[in-house]
């Protein structure tokens, strides 16, 4: 991997931006590579929708904007509808399967579905759905090693919530490995 661009989108409150922050933090700090995160900022980004883009690279990153990501993580129908057009041919689409109805997409795109909200509720707190989704994303895309991905979580969560968040990460990560094996 030299450079990978990831777009993450969902509802405000789902923790989409935090998931992007963990991804960038893990890559730049724990893999000692480069990451640049930008977020939609402005009146349109307040309230309903939340989105960010992360560029992960082995080399220093110059141009910070992302229009045609390699990976799209959609945690809401709105995010899917808004960003699916930009996803690169041959790219990876990762969705929260209970919240996103995938309409027709380019056949070159590989789709991975995860019921992250349900998993989070089973773990005990719906609030960790972003960590489930992050674990799943990392597993199906290979953007990070499992070890650095977990370190990213550890460095980004409040003290005392480790057990819950690691459980969420494990659930998402393991499910991702299973789904990836099925896809071949």
């Amino acid at each position, binding site marked *: 991997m030299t450079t990978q661009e990831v777009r993450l989108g969902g509802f405000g409150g789902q923790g989409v931006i935090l998931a992007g922050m963990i991804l*960038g933090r893990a890559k730049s*700090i724990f893999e000692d590579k480069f*990451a640049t995160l930008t977020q939609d900022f*402005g009146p349109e980004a307040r309230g309903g929708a939340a989105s960010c883009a992360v560029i992960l690279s082995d080399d220093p990153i*110059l141009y910070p*904007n992302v229009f045609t990501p390699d990976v799209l993580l959609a945690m809401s129908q709105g995010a899917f509808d808004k960003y699916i057009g930009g996803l690169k041919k041959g790219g990876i689409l990762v969705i929260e399967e209970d919240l996103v109805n995938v309409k027709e997409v380019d056949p070159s795109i590989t789709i991975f579905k995860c019921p992250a909200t349900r998993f989070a509720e089973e773990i005990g707190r719906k609030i960790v759905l972003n960590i489930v989704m992050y674990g799943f994303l990392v597993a199906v895309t290979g953007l990070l090693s499992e070890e650095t991905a977990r370190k990213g979580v550890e460095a980004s969560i409040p003290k005392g919530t480790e057990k819950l968040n690691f459980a969420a990460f494990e659930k998402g990560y393991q499910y991702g490995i299973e789904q990836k094996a099925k896809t071949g």
Partner: protein
Amino acid sequence: MKADPKRVLTGNHFINGNHSATEGAIAAGCTFAAGYPITPSTEIVERIAARFPRVGGVFIQMEDEIASSICLQGGAWAGHKSMTVTSGPGFSLMMEHIGLAAITELPCVFINVQRTGPSTGLPTKVGQADMMQARWGSHGDYEVIALAPSSPQDCFDFTIDCFNLAEEYRTPVFLMSDEMVGHMTEKVVIPEADQIDLLERKFYTGPKPYLPYKPEANGIPLMSKAGMGHHYHITGLTHDDRGYPVLTKEVQETMMERLMGKINDNREKLMRVEEYMMEDADIVLVSYGISFRMAYKAMEMAREKGMKVGLLRMITCWPFPESKIREIAQKVNSMIMVELNYGQMYIEMDRFANAYCKTGLVGSPCGEVHEPEEIFAGIQEIAK
């Protein structure tokens, strides 16, 4: 002197430029800030408000930017390293007090996270169109120092530099950031406190009477602060060594020669530039701040096409690196300024380069950063 370990968040962080600038200010020893939150600089005052009480600093949210830009000067006269933070219309409101800081020779830092103007413009979008305002915005002649960061790491490093320069030259210093750099999140390495060199304010400790504007050998007077026992007078009027108004041409001349000279005589020392692929370049891009990154990308595109393109990055924008521009202009066919405005630093570059080479501008109405392809098209146009 080294930074105080209690004020330095040593470690590797993944934070945005605005938060990084705040950490730079804290590491630099800033203990007083006044501000009025305004997009896209708000994250700085938010973090100041959260962090200052824990490190022995005071932040006051003022009623507006006019009040903020005078409040910080009170803090500086009380002996604090002081700053304010703003964007867009807030910067316009501060102009009168920038002149006051210049004539009273007050060390202080202004951070401007530039957005798109004029007026309220595009509050949440990037711009670089306050560059001339930073230089000329207050009435009368004066010199300033301004640095332009291109990344969150620069925001940390350059904010410390701004405070050091303010103390060294007793002058307002500007960090000319922008919305993209401010809101972009990247790795920021904060070193150990003993790796951070700080310039502390030099206070007058000699016999009374204290003459607040009697220059030392380097042309810069020593300061006092409230509580040191000195009686002195500070004014925005033309003043003599005692600080009292003397409204004559002679005193004005003496004062201005020193005010202008302390920066102008140190232009070479203040100049900070970076040069990329200049050895064989016949076209040179010149850029700063966020635009430097796009210009670099465009240079790479041009090199791939076999064009001999180099890049000069200005870290210090004011004083303008005129000797470097002149030196390059004599060796190349053309120089192109890349910036997010209709040509501000371009005017300066053209002034020093046009006697020797072609000059061009890849400007912008602002709102978004340049696409590298746009800059590449600009290179092809001027190379015709």
